[in-house]
C-alpha cells in the first residue's frame, strides 16, 4: 500500500543530470570554438563507453538496466572525464578511463549514490599516474586543426612538439623552476588575459553553465564559492608576499580545471559533503590542496588529487557539521 504523501514534485534524477549536461554545453561550445571539434569525438567515445560499461556491470550485478541507464548519471561522468582530459588523448585511453570510473569507482562501491570517490576524478588520477605523458599533451588554442585532432584521437603517430604545447599552468611551473619570475614567464604565448590563451574562454563557458545550475537550484552556492574562495585565498596569500614567484589568484581561478571543478566536479553530491557548513569546508579544502599541488607538487594541475583527498574526509566533515535542528537552538527559554 502506498502511504502519504500522495503527491510528488515532478522531479527526477534524470532531470537533475540532464540539467547538468545542459549546463556543460556553453563550456563545450567554447571548447569547440577555441580548441577544435576534437572534443566532440572524445565526448562521443566517452558517452558510448559509459553506457556500455554501465549496462554491462548492471547486468552482472543483476540490477535493472534500463532505469539506471536512463538516469543519465553515467553520461555526466563520461562528459566530465572527456572534458577533464586533454582533447587529443587516444581513444583507448578515454575508454579505459571511463570504464574505470563506471565499473571500479562507481559500481564496485555499490553503484549510483554509494561511491565515496568522484568517479571522473578517480579516473583522471589513475590515468595521469599510468600515462603521464599522454595526459599532459594539451594543444594550444588554434594550434591544430580537426583532422589532426581526429588522427591523434584515433591513434595516429604523435609528433609531440609540433602539435602539442604545454598548458599555461605547465609553462608557469617549468618557467618558475628554471628561475624565471612570474612576470617573465607570462610573456609566453600560451597566456591570455587571465588564464591560458583560449582556455580562459572555456573557463568562462563553465562559469556561465555554473550560474545556470545555481539559478535552477541544481547546486547550492556553498560548493563553488567554497572552492573558488579556498583556491583564490591560498593563491592570494602567496602572491601578496612573493608576486614574482607565485601567480595571481585571478590566474589560478581562470586556468586549468578550476571553473569546471568549481561548478561540476566538487558539486558531485554523492561523493561530496552535504551540510551547508560541510560543503564550504569540503570545497575550500579542495581549493587549498589544489593550489598546494599546483604550486609545490609534482603535477601542474592538482584538482583531481585534491578532490579525492577531500572525498576521504567527507564522512567526518558531515558528522561534525550537522546543522542544528528546529527547536534545539535554545530560544528564549
Amino acid at each position, binding site marked *: 500500500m502506498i502511504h502519504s504523501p500522495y503527491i510528488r514534485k515532478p522531479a527526477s534524477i534524470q532531470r537533475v543530470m540532464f540539467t547538468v549536461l545542459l549546463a556543460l554545453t556553453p563550456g563545450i561550445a567554447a571548447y569547440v570554438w577555441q580548441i577544435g571539434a576534437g572534443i566532440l569525438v572524445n565526448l562521443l567515445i566517452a558517452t558510448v563507453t559509459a553506457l556500455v560499461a554501465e549496462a554491462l556491470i548492471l547486468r552482472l550485478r543483476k540490477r535493472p538496466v534500463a*532505469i539506471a541507464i536512463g538516469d543519465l548519471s553515467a553520461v555526466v561522468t563520461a562528459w566530465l572525464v572527456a572534458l577533464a582530459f586533454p582533447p587529443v588523448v587516444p581513444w583507448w585511453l578515454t575508454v579505459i578511463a571511463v570504464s574505470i570510473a563506471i565499473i571500479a569507482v562507481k559500481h564496485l562501491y555499490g553503484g549510483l549514490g554509494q561511491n565515496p570517490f568522484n568517479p571522473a576524478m578517480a579516473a583522471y588520477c589513475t590515468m595521469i599516474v599510468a600515462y603521464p605523458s599522454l595526459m599532459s599533451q594539451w594543444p594550444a588554442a588554434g594550434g591544430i586543426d580537426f583532422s589532426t585532432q581526429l588522427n591523434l584521437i584515433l591513434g595516429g603517430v604523435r609528433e609531440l612538439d609540433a602539435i602539442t604545447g604545454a598548458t599555461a599552468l605547465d609553462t608557469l611551473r617549468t618557467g618558475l623552476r628554471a628561475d624565471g619570475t612570474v612576470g617573465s614567464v607570462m610573456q609566453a604565448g600560451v597566456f591570455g588575459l587571465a588564464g591560458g590563451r583560449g582556455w580562459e574562454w572555456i573557463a568562462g563557458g563553465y562559469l556561465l553553465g555554473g550560474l545556470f545550475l545555481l539559478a535552477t537550484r541544481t547546486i547550492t552556492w556553498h560548493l563553488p564559492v567554497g572552492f573558488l574562495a579556498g583556491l583564490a585565498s591560498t593563491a592570494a596569500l602567496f602572491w601578496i608576499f612573493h608576486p614574482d614567484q607565485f601567480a595571481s589568484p585571478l590566474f589560478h581561478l581562470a586556468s586549468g580545471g578550476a571553473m569546471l571543478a568549481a561548478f561540476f566536479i566538487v558539486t558531485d553530491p554523492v561523493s561530496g559533503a552535504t551540510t551547508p557548513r560541510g560543503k564550504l569546508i569540503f570545497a575550500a579544502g579542495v581549493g587549498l590542496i589544489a593550489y598546494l599541488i599546483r604550486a609545490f607538487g609534482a603535477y601542474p594541475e592538482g584538482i583531481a588529487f585534491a578532490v579525492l583527498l577531500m572525498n576521504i574526509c567527507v564522512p567526518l566533515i558531515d558528522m561534525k557539521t550537522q546543522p542544528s535542528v528546529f527547536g534545539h537552538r535554545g530560544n528564549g527559554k
Partner: protein
Amino acid sequence: MISRLFSFRGGIKPDAHKNESAEQSIQRAPLPAALVVPLRQSTRATARCVVSVGDKVLKGQRIGEPEGGLSTAVHAPTSGTVTEVGLFPLAHPSGLDTRCVVIEPDGEDRWIELKPFDYHSASRQQALNQLRDCGIVGLGGATFPSHIKLGKGSGIDTLILNGAECEPWITCDDRLMRERAADILSGATILRELIGARELIIGVEDNKPQAIAAMREAAASREAGIRVVPVPSLYPAGGEKQLIRVLTGVEIPYGKLAGEFGIQCFNVGTAHAVYRALAHGEPLVSRVVTLTGNVERPGNYEVLIGTPITHLLSLCRPRPDTDRTLMGGPMMGFALPRLDVPVVKGTNCIISASPALFPPPPPEQPCIRCGECARACPAELQPFELYWFSRAKNFGKAQEYKLFDCIECGCCAYVCPAHIPLVDYYRFAKSEIWAREREKAAADQARDRFEFRNFRQEREKEEKAAKLAAKAAETRAKLADTSATPADAATPPAGETAEDPKKALIAAALARAKAQKAAAQPKNTEALSPETEAEIAEIEARRKRAQESANTSASPSERTPETGA
C-alpha cells in the same frame, strides 16, 4: 498594528487545489440510514457506553460517559433508536475495530432539551467540565480533549487560533471562517479567558483572502487585542510548531508542549465548537468535512459524527476512474482501507483519488545525497541521513540525528528526485524503536518483579524464622516457669523489632532506585500524539500477527535440521 512575522526553514509549495471546493458553502449532509458512532472520540480514551440496544435517543443525548482523565463524553448525533453496540472498523490505516454505538435515525433530528451554560458566572472548572461533557476535542485532526489542553489556566500569554489549513485540497476551515467568523471569534475569546491569555492571534494562510477578510471584519467589532494575521502559504505552515514559529518566533522542540512556552494553539473549528458548547450548551455532534478530489460535486458539508464515508461519497459522486479514497490531505492523510467506516471528530476531508490526480510514484531510485530533502525539511533535519540510518537499521544513529523531531509532514518525500518514500522509512524506524523500548520496559519490569519476589521470599523466610524463634522462646519460657508470672510476655518478639528498620531500609532503597529510573531521560514512547498512539497499537497488532504466522510456519522447518543431525 504591524508586527513582525517570522519564518520557518524549508517547506514546499504544492498545488493548493482549493478552488475545487472553496466556493461551495457549507451544506447539511442528509441523514444516512444508520450512524456508527465510535465511543473512542478523543485520544487514548474510550467512553463508557450508557445506552443499550433498543433505547430511543435524542440528538445530543449522552451515549458515552467520560471515563478517565483524557476521555470526553460521546453523544447521539441525531434522534433515533440504538440498534447495535459492538465492534466496528475505525477510519484508520489499520482498519482496527473499536466499540461503536449504531443509531438508526428516526428522521426527526430532534434535539434533547439544551441547557444554556452561563459561562460568565461559571467557575473555570465548571467550564472545563462542560467542555468535557460536550465532547469537545481538537478538530484539527489530533482530537486531543480541549479541557485538558486548557490546562491549569495560568502561564499562558498567547492564544493562537490555527486557521492556516495548509494541506492541499482541504477547505473546511476556510468555509467555516468565511461563514461563521463571529462564532469562531466568540469561542476564541472564551478560550482566551479560560486560559488566561492576554494576546489572541489568528493565523490564516494568505491564500484565503476571503476568510481573512471575514475574520477581520468580525474582529473589528470586538475589543482590541485580537489580531488576524495572514501567514505565507507554505506547507506545512499549519503545523502547530511551524505556525507558532511564524507568529511568535518561538520554536517548540520535540517532547515539549507549547504551553511550556506560554503559548497555546487551537484550531478554528475547535473554537467554533467551544462557542456552541459554552454559549448554547450544544454538544459536538457534527463537523465540517470537505468532499473533493476526483468527484462530480465537490463541496463542504456539515456532517454528523458517525456518518459512513460511503454515504458522503454518494453526495459528491466520485468519477468512475477513482481508485482510492483518502482521509485528510494528500500530504499527511491516508488511504482508507475500507469505505464503510464512520466520520470521526478529526475527519476534515475526504478526497477521491484517481491515478490522474494522484499518480502512483515512479520507481524508487538510489539516493544521490542531493540534499533537496534537507532544504525542504521544516524540522531542519537531514532527511537523507535519517534515510540511510533507517535503511541500515542503525536506529541509534537515527535518534542521534533527531529522528523523533520528524513531524512526518512529507516535504522530503515530495521533493525527492529519486522518488524515495522517505517518510515510510522514518515510520519504520520509529516503530522499531518503540517496539524495542517497550520490550526493554517489559524486561525491566520483569527483572524488577523477579528481584522483588526474591526479596519478598527472603523476607518471608526471615519473618517465619523470627516467628518460630519467638514462639520457641515463648514455649521455652512457659515450660521453664509455669509457676512464675509471665513478665516478658508483653514485650514484642525480638525478631520483629530487628526486622522493621531493615525492612524500611530496603523499601527506601527500592524507592530510590525507582525514582532514579523514572528521572532518567524521557523515552520516545512518551509524549506521543494520539495518531501515533493508534499507529503504535496497529503496528503492535501487525507485529503480533506476523510473529504468530512466523511461529506456525517456522515450527516444521525448525525440526528439519534436528532430524538431519
